[in-house]
């Protein structure tokens, strides 16, 4: 378990260093994720300790958003001024993205798995 967490941290540290060194606008942990993904592709069969450690980190992934989300208390003034554009843009854009992407992908995916189509929309 310790080795697995150490490996994850090493990937992150590598990502942070690369991001800083080359002045990349990509966040360090994303570079770390790409590195780990490439490592897994090369290794083909990932060790169970690593997949367990990753799964444990991700089970309550949403808990990790709480401290940042509480930061909303520091943004009340900004939200007061911009709440309408924020709410409207968020809602319309999210639903638009979803419908357009789903339309595109239902045209592009190969028509093989007919069994996986839903019987009727719920």
């Amino acid at each position, binding site marked *: 378990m310790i080795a697995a967490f150490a490996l*994850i941290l090493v990937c992150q540290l590598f990502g942070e260093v690369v991001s800083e060194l080359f002045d990349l606008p990509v*966040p360090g*942990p*994303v570079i*770390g*994720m*790409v590195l780990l*993904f490439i490592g*897994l592709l090369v290794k083909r069969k*990932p060790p169970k300790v*690593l*997949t367990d*450690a*990753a799964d444990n*980190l*991700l089970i*309550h*992934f*949403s*808990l*990790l*958003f*709480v*401290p940042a*989300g*509480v*930061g*909303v*208390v520091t*943004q009340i003034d*900004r939200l007061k001024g*911009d709440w309408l*554009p*924020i*709410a*409207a*843009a*968020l*809602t*319309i*854009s*999210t*639903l*638009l*993205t*979803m*419908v*357009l*992407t*789903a*339309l*595109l*992908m*239902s045209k*592009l*995916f*190969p028509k093989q*798995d007919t069994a*996986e189509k839903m019987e009727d*929309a719920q």
Partner: protein
Amino acid sequence: MNEADITQLWVYLSAKPLTGLTITLVAYAVGFWLYQKSNRNPICNPVVIAIALIALLLNVTGTPYATYFEGAQFVHFLLGPATVALAVPLFRQTATLKRALPVIVFGVLFGSLVASASTVILAWALGASPETLASLAPKSVTTPVAMGIADEIGGVPALTAVCVIATGIVGATLGPMVMNKARLKDWRARGFAMGVAAHGIGTARAFQVNETAGAFSGLAMGLNTMATALTIPFLWHWIFG
């Protein structure tokens, strides 16, 4: 114990990292309990409940966010390693990835671009400030990465966190209804769209509805995280200088 004693006790406790950390875990546990009580209704989102409870507590006790964060930073820190760990569920989709790679890459780039361009254009048309626009642009990727992108392009990471979570909830609650209206019946396409538009919160929802949709949503979320982090900062600096 009189009121002065209680105030003094709170002043002592609130200066300890333990308090912020404990409050975070307890508030989330309450939120998760309510979520399960409501039969996993996406409106009872544990993150939203936890944030609301803590914000209320900070407000009532007059505690500054910075004091709370002294303790909460230990939870916040784990966002980095958890982002790296996303490589593992992504790796589990390798077989799917290989089968339809060009289609999937095209779909992710398309969705990533529509998500940020449509938000920025709409918010700009409605008169949002430049910082708000930069904070909204990465709203469809998972919080830690979105905050990192917002920071790079001149947004406010704290505002981005709020927008990302709101996006996830809108996508998870209204998304399936809108896709039903549009007569979209392919589980793969529906899941994929959910992951691109509504990141982790949408993926959690997709898994509840259908296993195939969940797997495609997780795949799309992981790839969209990469695609957005790799394209938006460059596009932003290129367009806005």
